[in-house]
């Protein structure tokens, strides 16, 4: 300010009037930045605290919901941020050594890293949005009373927007989960029950064509999430699923008594061609797989010892397990068996899971959405809320950091920095490192849960 210029001091022009020496000024600047970083840590600490609380109280939510995040995109972003921190550190060194051009190069690279991070973040977010995983009330898992809320699914390659209820989408997810799990040798009772139910209803038939198409087109690179999303490209599937609840119980009772055979597994088939995981649909209803009898008198709480399932899966919850066979256990002991099964106790548990599926070989347990207790179902959205709040706030910090780097870059282009005066590079570097560090914590906590 002009009114400060009246003081006489004999230091260099960057020395502010109230400091005696440049060292004092630089040390003050750095101290101020460290104090600011403390406030950043405390602020994100609050979010981590909320995360810790919910994860401790509801580990099943996190075990289930994190499967929707793409750890590869997150991993790439981690690498990008680490690299940009490295270039930033090199930039600080360059500034201290007076290497002007190298400093500018490093700052540009750091900035590019920030852009790269944000671009990947953009794709991550939009792919979540496309699956109706939003922050706030539009989240697929948002607990709603009744089923009034209708989301829209955009069909790829077409302009049509398909209205779909949340429950239909949730049911579809349950279908995919059951299908995938069954085909890779996981046969805990609830999975099998839902698999059989959906198979009976002909849902897989509708899915089949699409899956074939999809796997071919995508070169077997398709993601679990994309499966769910693209499923809705088939309007018929969506409608079939949406109607399921209304007809489920009736259809299930139509079938004959259970047969004591193993569930339909195409393990050999899957091994031969792991990408082509879809079994050929049976003509009509299943004839050789086990079939469960729906009995309204049976308490829904008894299924595999789980607490009641929600209204979403009212159809499936009426299934009575068969009297014989290893899937017919209904007590809590059976639940333990089911969990052991889920860990890979049955079938080919050495096979790697399909791409994008949770790797259940190392998971403690994995229960499909449909068979999660309602207390869990209603809270699954919390994982995504925390995810969006934490990563959104972090992305905002990345943007602020990029602004600061741009400012330093502007100064560097005018040759403002020298071995004597480079503290702005230093403190902006500190800020960039904390942004990086926060991500280093966010990434495993959100993406790499087991």
């Amino acid at each position, binding site marked *: *300010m002009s*009114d*400060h210029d*009246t*003081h006489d001091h004999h230091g260099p022009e960057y020395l*502010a*009037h*109230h*400091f005696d020496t440049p060292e*004092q000024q630089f*040390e*003050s600047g750095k*101290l*101020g930045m460290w*104090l*600011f970083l*403390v*406030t*950043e*840590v*405390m*602020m*994100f*600490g*609050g*979010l981590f*605290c*909320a995360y810790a*609380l*919910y994860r401790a109280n509801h580990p099943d939510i996190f075990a289930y919901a994190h499967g929707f995040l793409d750890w590869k995109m997150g991993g790439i972003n981690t690498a990008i941020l680490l690299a940009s921190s490295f270039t930033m550190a090199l930039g600080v060194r360059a500034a201290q050594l007076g290497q002007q051009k190298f400093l500018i190069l490093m700052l540009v690279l750091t900035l590019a890293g920030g852009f790269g991070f944000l671009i990947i973040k953009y794709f991550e977010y939009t792919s979540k949005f496309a699956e109706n995983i939003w*922050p*706030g*009330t539009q989240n697929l898992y*948002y*607990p709603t009373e009744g089923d009034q809320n209708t989301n829209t699914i955009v069909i790829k390659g077409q302009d049509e927007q398909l209205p779909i209820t949340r429950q239909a989408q949730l049911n579809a997810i349950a279908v995919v989960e059951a299908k995938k799990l069954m085909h890779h040798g996981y046969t805990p009772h609830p999975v099998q029950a839902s698999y059989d139910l959906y198979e009976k209803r002909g849902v897989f038939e509708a899915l089949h064509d699409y899956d074939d198409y999809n796997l071919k087109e995508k070169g077997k690179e398709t993601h679990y999430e994309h499966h769910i999303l693209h499923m809705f490209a088939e309007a018929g599937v969506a409608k079939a699923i949406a109607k399921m609840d209304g007809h489920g119980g009736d259809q299930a009772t139509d079938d004959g008594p259970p047969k004591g055979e193993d569930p339909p597994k195409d393990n050999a088939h899957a091994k031969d061609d792991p990408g082509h995981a879809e079994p050929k649909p049976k003509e009509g209803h299943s004839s050789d797989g086990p079939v469960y009898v729906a009995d309204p008198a049976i308490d829904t709480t008894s299924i595999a010892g789980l607490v009641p399932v929600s209204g979403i899966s009212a159809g499936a919850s009426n299934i009575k397990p068969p009297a014989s066979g290893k899937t017919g256990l209904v007590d809590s002991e059976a639940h333990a068996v089911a969990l052991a099964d889920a860990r890979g106790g049955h079938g080919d548990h050495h096979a790697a899971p399909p791409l994008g599926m949770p790797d259940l070989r190392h998971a403690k347990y994995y229960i499909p959405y449909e068979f999660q207790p309602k*207390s869990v179902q*209603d*809270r699954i*959205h*919390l994982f995504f*809320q*925390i995810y*969006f*709040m934490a990563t959104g*706030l972090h992305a905002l910090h990345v943007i602020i950091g990029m602004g600061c780097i741009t400012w330093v870059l502007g100064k560097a282009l005018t040759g403002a920095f020298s071995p004597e005066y480079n503290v702005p590079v230093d403190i902006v570097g500190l800020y960039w490192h904390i942004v990086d560090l926060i991500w280093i914590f966010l990434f495993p906590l959100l993406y790499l849960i087991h």
Partner: protein
Amino acid sequence: MSVADRPITTDIYGEEIELKPGDNYINHSKGILSWALTLDHKRIGLMYMVVVLASFFLGGIFAIALRTQLLFGKASNIEDGSVIGSAMWNNLYNQAFTLHGAIMVFMFIIPAIPAILGNVVLPLQLGAKDVAFPRLNLMSFYCWMGGGALLGCLLIGAIMHLMMGGENAPAFLSYIPNGLDTGWTFYTPYSIQTNTSVIFATMGAFVLGFSSILTGLNFIATIHMLKPKGMGWFQMPLFLWALYATAVIQILATPVLAITLLLLAAENMLGIGIFDPKLGGDPVLFQHFFWFYSHPAVYIMILPALGVVSEIISVFSRKHIFGYKFIAYSSLAIALFGFIVWGHHMFTSGQSPMINALFSLLTMSVAIPSAIKVFNWLATMWKGRIRLDTPMLYAMGFIWLFTIGGLTGLPLAALSTDIYMHDTYFVVAHFHYVMVGSTLFAFLGGMYYWFPKMFGRMYNEKTGKWAWAVTFIGFNVTFFIQFIAGTQGMPRRYATYLDQYTIYHHISTGGSYILTIGLFMVLANWIMAKRGKRAPANPWGGNQLEWHTNSPPPHENFKYDPVGTDPYHYHDWKYDEKIDGYVLDPDHDPGNPKHKPAH
């Protein structure tokens, strides 16, 4: 006296100096921009003073409004169709106590001492030319203005709704913020359900938090980096220790409030449900988050006050402060203890008995450093030559109010009694004694104490003392009776009450009117001081460095670089009747290059 009109004052050696335009920070430069864009910590402090006192006035209006409602709110006054007890009456009351609390806490008590007195005095006490980051300091002020503007919108919106609301409300009214009725604590799930403007209020408090953080950051950096020659940590005036401890809390606690308010705003805007039990969230988590900030925040309010009182007690007892290190360390101890006691706000919110017992024990331990301070002040006054000037009256009033407020905190910290008294007027009285009584009295005392330094004029001592008496009596009448009302079971935050509580409410409301009169007397005294006697450089005889420069100080604070000495060593200052102030023998001023004694 004609002295007042002559532009002549005295410097610290008692020599007359002629006041010329531009030789002090107030008339250093002219024009509104020279104030709005100033980087001078003293001017920023004065700007804070104007706006913070304005918010004190606003908060006070709401206090009087709710006390007046309670004057009429007894149950037997409620009839069918009467205004009293109607939905509008209750709504008005809820808005009044909420806005009173929110404005007083976020816009008055938290910034009052650090932002006004701290900004003006801290660099002076360090013998520095400015705070470490003058630009951040100005930014902090404008953050305060931004946050204040958001809360101001809320306020104007509330008035518009009051005047235009109802059945014939114009359509645009639904876009105007509709006040706030959650209480300043924003407890969920009510703050998610109310139709008042929680988002506006949380964003306002969020931005005000930035202001608080930047001020704290600035103070820590300044105290670390800008101490003068001859001043180590234990030669610092105790006000600086108190501000340092305060700044530590501001740095560590305020960000937690920031994330809490962000989550609450997201809860209201997007419905994320983290604090909403209906959506699987945890409302007690909100209380933990909120009090993790807001309990330390009550120490943000009280610690600077403790610092001000330490200065005043010693200077006006003409005696070295007793137990310097104990007072200094107890400030830090209070700051640290303040972080581990927040759970005592949730004794009835469903914590485990184990946690409750732990928090109860920790809460009581805060009494130890607080008592250390009180006993050290009393020991300082012991056998001192006490001058009963206005600042000293406020400081002694502070000890009285702080002791009552502190001791009544103990039954609230004890689990069994707290279950009974939770959310009664006993709690209201307790925290008003600590926060309003103590902090407000210390703030007023500090204002009087540094008034000559800030403005170069003396206020009227006689009016000052009368005003003190009226505020002191008014305050005690207002709030002491509330302890009794609370023990009789009067719950807080109720717009009406059973007839048995009538007498308590009438006395309390009467007291609040007396308090208001006293506060206006204070204000009048300050405004009248515009024509007051010109202040000498050191009217009270303190040896802290702010008294080693002219009143008001020049733009660059000191004519020469001062040297730190024992701030509580007063013997070199001699009283001079002619100027009604203290003067220093130049030979005893180690900082003065011209008067170096020849060795």
